């Protein structure tokens, strides 16, 4: 058995003359949780679909759970749980009917028992005869996760599973993912736009314009972004961002509540820029750049690169 859950090289997908994914290399060990991040349209969904055999790559090769992504799609489907970005269960079937349908397609024995246990795990026994469409967004996501894990997949491919879901439901959702991966040795690749979710992952893969920009732990990514970040707090910083922007050395500014972050890769010039605005109730101090700062810097860099290549 391959030690890698996902092992793809140069995976490429074109739709007409539009390149959605431009050569993806990914070696993901079993049992880990990886975050798949990047701006909208960066190729995350297309990559996930290729990995689980739903889309045929137009170039490259690879294996998912040891099966060839080009030729062994049906074997992959049986061992992968793929949760689509949009809720894709049948809203005009009841919760129970949805689960039963999925269980039947996986040719499970004891359908009723499996569905009962799944419903109990979800705490949805009382509502099992309600239409799935009547569930709130958070519950729909939990139902979907339960449905795609019912057959005991070795790999979970979750495409923005928590988009539009409230914080409590998101936390519950991630607890569930860690339970599955911790005890069961399940591997999970989770795409997300939430930085707090990305920070819960063992490693992060950052995609932009259909290319893998960087892959590593949170600390790796922050270090490799080369960013220096200064932070100032207080009433006086409210109008500071406009003054800082455009000064040499200041690449990004962002407010976090009453605090302002100013980041850049050139420490000397950034220090000079922030000093010019300090004093009179504004005190800058250096902080560790957060993941969001790093990603925004990386995204800017990726845009810059592609402009040069074009």
């Amino acid at each position, binding site marked *: 058995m391959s030690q890698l859950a996902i092992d793809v090289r140069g995976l490429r997908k074109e739709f007409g003359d539009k390149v959605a994914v431009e050569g993806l290399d990914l070696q993901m060990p079993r049992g880990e949780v990886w975050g798949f991040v990047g701006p909208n349209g960066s190729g995350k969904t297309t990559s996930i*679909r290729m990995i689980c055999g*739903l889309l045929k790559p137009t170039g490259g090769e690879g294996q998912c759970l040891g099966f060839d992504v080009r030729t062994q799609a*049906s074997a992959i489907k*049986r061992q992968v749980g793929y949760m*689509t970005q949009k809720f*894709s*269960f*049948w*809203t005009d079937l009841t919760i129970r009917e949805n689960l039963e349908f999925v269980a039947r*397609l996986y040719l499970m024995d004891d359908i009723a028992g499996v569905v009962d246990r799944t419903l109990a795990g979800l705490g949805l026994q009382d509502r099992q005869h309600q239409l799935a469409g009547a569930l709130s967004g958070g519950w729909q996501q939990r139902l979907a996760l339960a449905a795609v894990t019912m057959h005991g997949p070795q790999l979970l491919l979750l495409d923005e599973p928590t988009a539009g879901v409230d914080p409590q439901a998101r936390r519950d959702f991630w607890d569930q993912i860690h339970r599955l991966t911790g005890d069961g040795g399940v591997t999970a690749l989770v795409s997300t736009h939430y930085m707090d979710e990305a920070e819960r992952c063992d490693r992060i893969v950052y995609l932009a314009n259909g290319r893998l920009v960087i892959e590593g732990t949170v600390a790796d990514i922050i270090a490799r972004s080369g960013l220096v970040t200064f932070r100032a707090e207080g009433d006086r910083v409210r109008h500071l961002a406009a003054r800082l922007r455009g000064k040499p050395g200041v690449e990004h500014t962002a407010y976090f509540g009453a605090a302002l972050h100013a980041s850049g890769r050139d420490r000397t010039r950034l220090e000079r820029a922030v000093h010019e605005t300090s004093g009179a109730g504004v005190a800058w101090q250096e902080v560790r750049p957060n993941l969001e700062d790093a990603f925004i810097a990386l995204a800017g860099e990726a845009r810059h690169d592609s402009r040069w290549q074009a």
Partner: protein
Amino acid sequence: MIARGFWRRVWAIFQKEFTQMRRDRLTFAIMVAVPVMQLLLFGYAINTDPRQLPTAVHAEESTPIVRSILRGLENSGYFELVRESADPQESSRLLASGEVMFVVSIPANFTSDLVAGRHPQLLLEADASDPVAATRALGQAQTIVTRALRHELGGSLAGLQERPEPFELVIHPRYNPEGITQYNIVPGLLGVILTMTLVMITAIAMTREAERGTMENLLALPARPAEVMVGKITPYLLVGAAQTVLILVAALGLFDVPFVGNLGILAAGLAIFAVANLALGFTFSTIARTQMQAMQMTFFFFLPSMLLSGFMFPFRGMPGWAQAIGEVLPLTHFLRVVRGVMLKDASFADLHASLGAMALFTTAACGVAMVRYRRTMD
């Protein structure tokens, strides 16, 4: 009083609506194509005074007078003598299979009997299952033959031109001798209703998955294309079976349509026909992105099926190109089967061409549906 800004907001909505209409290429194309198709079909294809109707000749003698009668029939424009029939059995088979609409039978000694003033009989058998198609030609037959004979019966035979006619034209309108329209329409309706509902229902059932986003889930689950297709189609096959029973019961019970043929042959025809329509609906669903588009595509197919199949207007009355299109449509062949079985007691041998044509269409439609479904995600 019009509120301030009324027209500007109307204009904004108008523009948005128009832009969306333009973007929906399929809808736009169908909106343009349907009127064009209707104009062409109603304007050129449909003819309620059908001519050049295929006719077989069973002549037991060939004399100048017989040849003159046949020429007269052909020159009238109503009858096109397409083939000869060796015996009455073959004549019946040709009528039952729908290959010809008329058979002219001229007995041996027709000419000598005529000359001797013995008033010989001339038999004209017609497939009257579609009363509209046959009536005009039958109404003209007597005049045509009389006129043809008038040329021949000059000189010493002029005496035979007196009244009554020197021959007796016996007209045999078969299958539907009283010319009851329902006998033709009601069995045909079975085909029309199945076409409409089965194509549409399948197209919509599949498109709904795509429109709601559940298709991706279905594809991600371990179900093969053939499994999805058979599983999705079969429920509607049962719907079709229920409709069939309903219509047949109504045909026999309410409209007293005769059922003289073999139910087994009809069942075989129904099965092939239903699968053809379902496969077509499945194919439409792989093209249409919304349920609305699926409906429109169904209508686009339904219109020529109604008009060119021989359901509403006589098939043989249409020009060649329209008949050629009609031959492709499964409804055309199904109508031949259902009318053949119910009204004409047509045998399997009589209908094998129609059954074969439907089977061919079904195979092609299933193939296209499968290929297109496989490409759904790409």
